[in-house]
């Protein structure tokens, strides 16, 4: 994340004059407010799978349920049965013995920059922050995504990540649209795009916007400046939305289209915000303008206002133990996740990091242990909601994935032990029922174009 900020600053300092033209939005359709329905549609298709059952494993269903010595049956890309040892399984299917192992829904990371800040971390590929204006609601993160980021494959093989939301960076107050992906390698972004997932809007409070623009002598340079620019923008967005809803003619404005969709509840707000007092200001702002904050991201002080988050139905997407790397992170504590969980607010473990995304299960374990030591005894299977149904809900995909319920996408991880142990890794990962990682089969390790033919390609990572 710090890397991203640095990259943002570098990018903004080093934009060659000639490059600007290439980045300009296409000319808007004059005199028409008609928006194309879905101009960059998903082309993702599930890869073929074989009917598969796992027997004898401990299953966390992702909604807080646990089945010991369980059976799960996947066919046609869906979960077709789940239950105890007596659950019937058809003959002649791929059957895996899960004794001593665990089955969970695939991990969902609600906050990632894979693809828009890919590896290698070089300026030429640094595409996560359009740090040229504090309000860039018009940009779409999906147009920055480089599908050849090797990080996707690592998140699959080491982290069991099957779906993830890619966000723009946090240099801006309004950073632009996010996109939700299936973690399946593809030639194009569209080939990864999660069918039917709603868009998100990235917003940011605090130090980043005021530093990035304040250092250029521009507004905002203070937290009050942040709020003022936010509110001015929402005033415009409300006018735009009102006209649009009334069917009045107006010049298309990509940023306003996104914000109008937020006001109409079609796009979900993901707000980077660290401090408790700032989150409270944002909650009031959302009421002032009639939109909803779906989740505060990072929220290292969420534990100070866990009641407020619960009462307003806002999720907190959190790290396990990050603290102190900048002033607004100074009060980070390991008990943040269990305290927010205990208050009854929706709790999510997120990464914001190409390494952390490979170990979200371990981040959750840190929170579990810290909670238990202060008497907050959360069961393992309940903690798995932080990695499954909770992020799925906050990303608007809970009807399709995020738990092992019959009829949902067969996004499944077979772990070689308890996934809250440091000693455990994914053994197999299915996405929509297709086996896309198998630790025992070197040919089932994704090798991105970038790595192909380079030293170490196809190595166990």
């Amino acid at each position, binding site marked *: 994340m*710090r*890397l991203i900020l640095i990259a943002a600053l570098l990018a903004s300092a080093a934009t060659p004059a000639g490059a600007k033209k290439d980045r300009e939005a296409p000319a808007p359709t004059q005199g028409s407010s008609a928006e194309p329905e879905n101009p960059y549609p998903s082309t993702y298709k599930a890869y073929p799978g074989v009917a598969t059952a796992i027997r004898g494993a401990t299953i966390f269903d992702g909604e807080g349920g646990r089945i010991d010595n369980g059976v799960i049956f996947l066919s046609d890309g869906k979960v077709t049965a789940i239950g105890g040892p007596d659950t019937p399984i058809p003959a002649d299917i791929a059957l895996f013995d899960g004794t001593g192992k665990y089955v969970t829904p695939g991990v969902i990371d609600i906050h990632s920059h894979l693809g828009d800040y890919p*590896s*290698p*971390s*070089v300026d030429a590929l640094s595409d996560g922050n359009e740090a040229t204006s504090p309000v860039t609601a018009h940009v779409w993160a999906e147009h920055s995504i480089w599908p050849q980021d090797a*990080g996707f494959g*690592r998140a699959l093989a*080491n982290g069991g990540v099957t779906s993830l939301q890619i966000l723009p960076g946090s240099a801006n107050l309004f950073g632009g649209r996010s996109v939700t992906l299936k973690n399946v390698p593809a030639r194009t972004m569209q080939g990864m795009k999660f069918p039917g997932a709603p868009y998100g809007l990235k917003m940011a409070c605090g*130090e980043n916007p005021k530093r990035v623009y304040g250092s250029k002598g521009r507004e905002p340079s203070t937290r009050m400046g942040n709020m003022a620019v936010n509110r001015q923008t929402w005033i415009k967005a409300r006018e735009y939305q009102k006209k649009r809803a009334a069917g009045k003619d107006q010049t298309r404005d990509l940023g306003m289209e996104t914000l109008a969709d937020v006001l109409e509840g079609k796009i979900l707000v993901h707000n980077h915000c660290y401090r408790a007092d700032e989150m409270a200001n944002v909650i009031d702002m959302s009421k002032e303008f009639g939109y909803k904050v779906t989740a505060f991201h990072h929220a290292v002080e969420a*534990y*100070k*206002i866990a*009641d*407020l988050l619960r009462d307003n139905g806002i999720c907190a997407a959190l790290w*396990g*133990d*990050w*603290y*102190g*790397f*900048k*002033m607004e992170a*100074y*009060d980070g*504590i*390991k*008990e943040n996740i269990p*305290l927010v969980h205990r*208050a009854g607010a929706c709790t999510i473990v997120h990464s914001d990091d*190409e*390494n952390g995304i*490979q*170990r979200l299960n*371990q*981040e959750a*374990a*840190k929170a579990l*242990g*810290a909670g238990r*030591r*202060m008497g907050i005894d959360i069961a393992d299977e309940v903690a798995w909601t932080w990695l499954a149904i909770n992020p799925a809900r906050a990303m608007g995909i809970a009807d399709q994935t995020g738990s092992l319920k019959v009829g949902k996408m067969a996004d499944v991880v077979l772990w*070689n*032990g308890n996934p*809250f*142990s*440091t*000693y*455990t*890794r994914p053994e197999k990962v299915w996405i929509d029922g297709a086996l896309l990682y198998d*630790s*025992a089969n070197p040919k089932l390790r994704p090798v991105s174009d*970038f*790595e192909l033919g*380079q*030293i*170490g390609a196809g*190595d*166990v*990572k």
Partner: protein
Amino acid sequence: MMTASNIRSLRAKSRSARAAFAALALLSTPALAQSLAITGATLAIGDGSEPIRNGTVLISAGKVTAAGAGIAIPPGIKAIDAGGKWVTPGLVSGYSRVGLVEVPAVNETNDASARSPFSAAIDVAPAINPLANPIAISRTAGITRAVVVPSTGIGIFAGQGAVVDLGADMNAITRARAFQYVELGEEGAKDAGGSRPAAILTFRTMLREVQDYAKAPASYDGRSKDALLNRVDAQALVPVVTGAMPLMVHVESARDIVTVLSLRQDFPALKLIIAGAAEGWMVAPQIAAAKVPVIAGGLDDLPSSFEKLAATQSNVGRMVKAGVIVSMGLMDRDEGLQLRLATQQAGNMVALNKVPGATGLSWGQALRTISSAPAEAMGLGDRIGSLKPGRAGDVVLWDGDPLEMTSAPIAVWIDGVPQPIDNRQTKLRDRYATPQEGALPKAYEW
């Protein structure tokens, strides 16, 4: 001009001065090294051996006097029954900036680097702040010693690092000027003006100047326009050239590692330590043959730069298998704060044993990378980093397997002195255990 923010920061300073005074008063209370026996422990020595059940550790006069199975407890000594819980040596972070940094992004609190006319002569030891919050937070997590590494400002040399203890007292220095630090990879190229050849030439030329200085210090003219080193930096590098002081070199790629090893052809006395070495596995036999210890990040597995194309989590295991002494530390991020990630790094090395085709470490070997191995890399293997007799009484009693993320220390001793188990984060936790205010505002709950 007295701006509002100046006034605020002045107020903050006087507040923090009072707090520091209170803390000092506490710290000056004599905390004596205990004579102590911990019995019934799942005991790990830290030397690479596997943990044993029902082990005992004896500490006397601040040092370990015995550790193992079947050890007789001297009469009259205070004994703690671990009840099967885990006991390890205090952990050693092989690469950190702890004590140099409070909040990395707040420049006023970050002493890791400087744009200074001095480089190699910079000595971090006097700047180590034993009251820095990351020290207390790391200590509470079982880290008792750390290698503190400066980072480069202008030029390829960063200065002289230290080994510190994380005890709650004002004496943090285990060894000042423990090593010199130089960048010779991608970062070194940048520091030298833009290329690796420039970095290597700069390095060689500077060491030649150091040799000139050593021969006749009085006649060395560090101010001439041809001189790369001023007198102070030249003087600081003399022990590097003579091999009296280790030289920690940061490189990542296989190519750069080989280049660094070859520097000893011209400067045979160099006592090298390689930091980074993401591609070390590719040239592990050469590193082992050169008897150069490595401090690695451990979990690097992405081509995050072109010098890390072959990064894999099996790097550490493969190097250890080839006979390299490998330690782990924090490379690239959170060096000032997150020393407690050491147990996660080590635990993941154990996890690799269950991944087909991967090379991990045994539990004992993994613990060694965060205890005795970094101590040995610093030439302090006889003083810290393990529970062998004669080592410092740095001991941690854990509530579970130390390499599991659900575990945490119950008690920590440094030099035999019991350490406080609270810190700023535990205070915040306790204050906000319920977020709502009570009869008074939260500010009164302390």
